[in-house]
């Protein structure tokens, strides 16, 4: 049995009777057992996966209605709640947190008979881009175990890339889906802000983050988006997309479409030669298949990383303020503490990157400093948004490499926080403007993946996926070596 098949091929396989759900799930579990001690994609596996598989098989056999996922194994980043099981955010502070509800996106997969095979690793509270900040240890890149898988949804990307499951749900605040997708050579989509419900996603920077699919193919991305998107009465920010079918006409091609190449991202200081060369190739490919490519400048881009960290720190400061160990948390004797010292003691369990951003988040929006930092960051955000709106009047898509560099070795970048942050250079624009963006695997150079990013205007996921599909068709990549 081939565990590397796409979701759509899994569907066909089940429908044809090529294999049963139970067979597929038990093979997947075997593989996880085999490879995950090295990869560490998973923080926890679903003990009931096999039971659920048998149940779906029974449904199929007795010709009952079966959901579109037909029991396919899907992993979920461990910052999305599942009722009754632990959701840790890869933090010691939430080590034993059991949510009383299931995140809407996960619940929608469940009602389509997906089997949530396990919860995947991430940087603590999704703050980071390598999983090195996970309190439970990093995940490894399946293309080379000495290299980081990207992050923060690193575990999700690894689990899909290493064929431990068919697909995964990640969350993307500044590139957290696209960055690891690019580093692990899988497809990662960050939808338009509001297209997918955030109910049950543990907030980090709630004004810009989105849940999205990490998959083996662009078609699978559309398939999952069909299931998880749309209005949700538990999230006031969700948009009604009228049950749009993102799979329909996905092969429409990009003949005659106008593509802007964001010059700030293809001429940036941090861009590696390998990535630049691949990008130039990708541009040629796009032209060959009928698109018109043109350089375009997004002048706010050089300021976006600073703005991004200012805004996300501010929101993280308030979103994480609730972890004061009063209403829930861990055993800890409050005797002898006054309230403020109690809180600082209670927060000892938060890791160094979370602490850094919360300290930053206490400072940048404070009364004496907001004008210099937080309000300026908001100004960058709004200028960037109007700039990109104007550009989308002329262009259908904007492209850039997803990440300016290829995967790096563990410990290689983490010592220098500022240059570390700059790795987000190409991804944060989509979050700050709320636009959809996708990372498509493009090349393997020196045994390590490079992904291309395509951005589109709000709610244009349909055409975005068409463009990604067209690019994907031109690419042939080796199999993952693990």
């Amino acid at each position: 049995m081939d565990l590397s098949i796409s979701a759509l091929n899994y569907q066909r396989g089940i429908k044809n009777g090529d294999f049963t759900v139970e067979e597929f799930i038990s093979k997947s579990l075997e593989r996880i057992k085999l490879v995950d001690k090295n990869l560490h994609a998973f923080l926890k596996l679903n003990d009931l996966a096999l039971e659920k598989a048998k149940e779906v098989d029974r449904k199929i056999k007795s010709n009952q209605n079966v959901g579109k996922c037909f029991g396919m194994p899907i992993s979920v980043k461990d910052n999305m709640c599942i009722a009754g099981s632990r959701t840790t955010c890869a933090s010691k502070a939430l080590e034993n947190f059991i949510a009383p509800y299931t995140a809407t996106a996960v619940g929608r997969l469940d009602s389509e008979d997906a089997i949530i095979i396990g919860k995947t690793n991430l940087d603590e509270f999704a703050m980071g881009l390598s999983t090195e900040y996970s309190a439970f240890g990093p995940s490894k890149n399946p293309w080379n175990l000495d290299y980081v898988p990207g992050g923060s949804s690193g575990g999700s990307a690894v689990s899909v890339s290493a064929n431990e499951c068919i697909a995964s749900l990640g969350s993307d605040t500044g590139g957290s889906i696209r960055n690891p997708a690019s580093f692990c050579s899988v497809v990662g989509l960050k939808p338009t802000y509001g297209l997918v419900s955030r109910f049950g996603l543990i907030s980090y920077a709630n004004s810009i983050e989105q849940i999205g699919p990490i998959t083996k193919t662009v078609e699978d991305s559309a398939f999952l988006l069909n299931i998880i998107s749309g209005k949700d009465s538990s999230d006031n920010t969700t948009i009604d997309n009228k049950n749009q079918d993102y799979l329909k006409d996905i092969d429409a091609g990009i003949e005659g479409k106008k593509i802007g190449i964001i010059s700030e991202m293809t001429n940036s200081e941090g861009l590696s030669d390998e990535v630049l060369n691949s990008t130039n190739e990708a541009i040629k490919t796009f032209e060959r298949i009928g698109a018109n490519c043109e350089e375009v400048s997004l002048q706010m881009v050089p300021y976006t990383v600073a703005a991004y960290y200012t805004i996300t720190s501010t929101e993280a400061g308030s979103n994480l303020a609730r972890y004061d160990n009063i209403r829930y948390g861990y055993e800890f004797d409050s005797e002898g503490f006054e309230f403020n010292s109690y809180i600082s003691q209670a927060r000892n369990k938060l890791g160094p990157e979370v602490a850094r951003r919360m300290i930053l988040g206490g400072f940048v929006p404070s009364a004496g400093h907001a004008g210099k930092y937080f309000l300026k960051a908001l100004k960058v955000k709004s200028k960037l948004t109007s700039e990109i709106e104007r550009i989308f009047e002329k262009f259908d898509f904007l492209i850039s490499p997803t990440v300016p560099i290829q995967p790096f070795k563990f410990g290689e970048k983490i010592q220098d926080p500022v240059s570390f942050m700059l790795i987000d250079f190409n991804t944060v624009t989509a979050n700050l403007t709320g636009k959809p963006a996708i990372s498509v695997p493009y090349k393997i150079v020196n045994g390590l993946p490079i992904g291309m990013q395509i951005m589109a205007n709000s709610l244009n996921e349909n055409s975005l996926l068409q463009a990604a599909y067209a690019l994907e068709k031109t690419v042939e990549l080796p199999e993952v070596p693990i």
Partner: protein
Amino acid sequence: MTKIGLEIHCQLTKLESKLFCPCKADYREFEPNTNVCPICLGIPGSLPLLNKKAVEKATLIAMALDCKTPEKIAFFRKSYFYPDLPKNFQITQLNADGYGNRSIGWGGKVTIDNKEIRIRRIQLEEDPGRLIYEGATERTKITLVDYNRAGTPLVEIVTEPDFENPHQVRNFLNILSDLIENLGVSDPGLDGAMRADANVSIEGGSKVEIKNIGSFHDLEKAVHFEITRQQSLAEREIEIMQETRHWDDKRKITVSARTKEEEEEYRYHLEADIPWVNISNNVKNQLQIQMPENISSKKERYVSKYNIAPQVADILASDKYFSDLFENANNETDAKDIANMITTDLMGLVDTREKREQSKLEPKHLADLIECIKLNKITRTSAKLALEKIVKTGKALPQIIEEFDLGHVSDKSTLEGIIGEVLKQETKAVEESKQNPEILNYLVGKVMQKTQGKADPELTLAILKKNLGID
């Protein structure tokens, strides 16, 4: 010149649910921490879901206070650590640079005794939970937290410092409380439903905030105390510090809570989980139509249309319970009598919140009573007794009259017998009546006393006159 400003917090107790979740807006009578859910407890992964009705009710208050209202409102996070705040930030509103005026209302005014009090801002926010201390706040060893109240819809009304003395403050609060009750958005009589803080400054001094004041009565006293304290400092040329002071209910003084040097740091920023809410002109027009008649025009109408005495009209119009009763009982012909019955007879019977809640009186009872008095079926005295029984039992008037034998004694021979007895006992009065016809009233009273007020007054008078030989 002394300047006093107010910050009034008013819960929208008439709403079904809290501001951002389905828990009950009226948390009273719940066991501690049972009127809670993941949203109002701020459990990770939960998101606030705005109660649109709260936005409408708050807008109604803003319109009634003559405020400007925005096209779109926005919510902000106000961050501070306090155990009663489940998320360690409060979702509230702000009129901030770069966003424009996004609170429920601003720039309003209320005129009281020809003095204009300007309303600076009205905002909608969530109430925190409640802290219960063991003993005095400063010395408590144990603090208990009850989150039942957390998330209750709260409207904050901020005035400009337009008051000059405690009396004006008290007056304003009474009128505001009546106004809010009249709008049907809140029941200010409920414990904690309406709270106020004050800021006080005298000529040349810094602004001092007074918090933690339990009642309007105490607020008046606290403001009075604070003015005196500041004046005495000024006389001794001691600087008045800008600070927050707490009202100590036991000692009846204000005590320093914290100086403004440790200026609160709230790190305001937009609450992205709640999209901006459009309040269209259509909605505003609808609200205007629903807006109940205001107290002063109600009063004017009572006076001009029904010829009700101004003092009676005033009492009636400013109390929603009584004015609703009046409007529903009023059949246009007996308006004045119904109004008088409410203010003279009924008010004493239902003078507390509990009594009002327990009262079984229906508007129809009032109309029936007046009609029976007019048709001479019952005396005023008996009517008063009947009202008391009705409030207790809710039974129909004819049943009450029969059960308690309140009907007129209009049988001539029975009355003649009773009057004969009275005249025998009151020999002195009978004597005096020859010179002083006023004495007749005294004798009528005596007959009423004997008949427990049931004697037909006209017949009694006629028989008395005949017996005493007065024409």
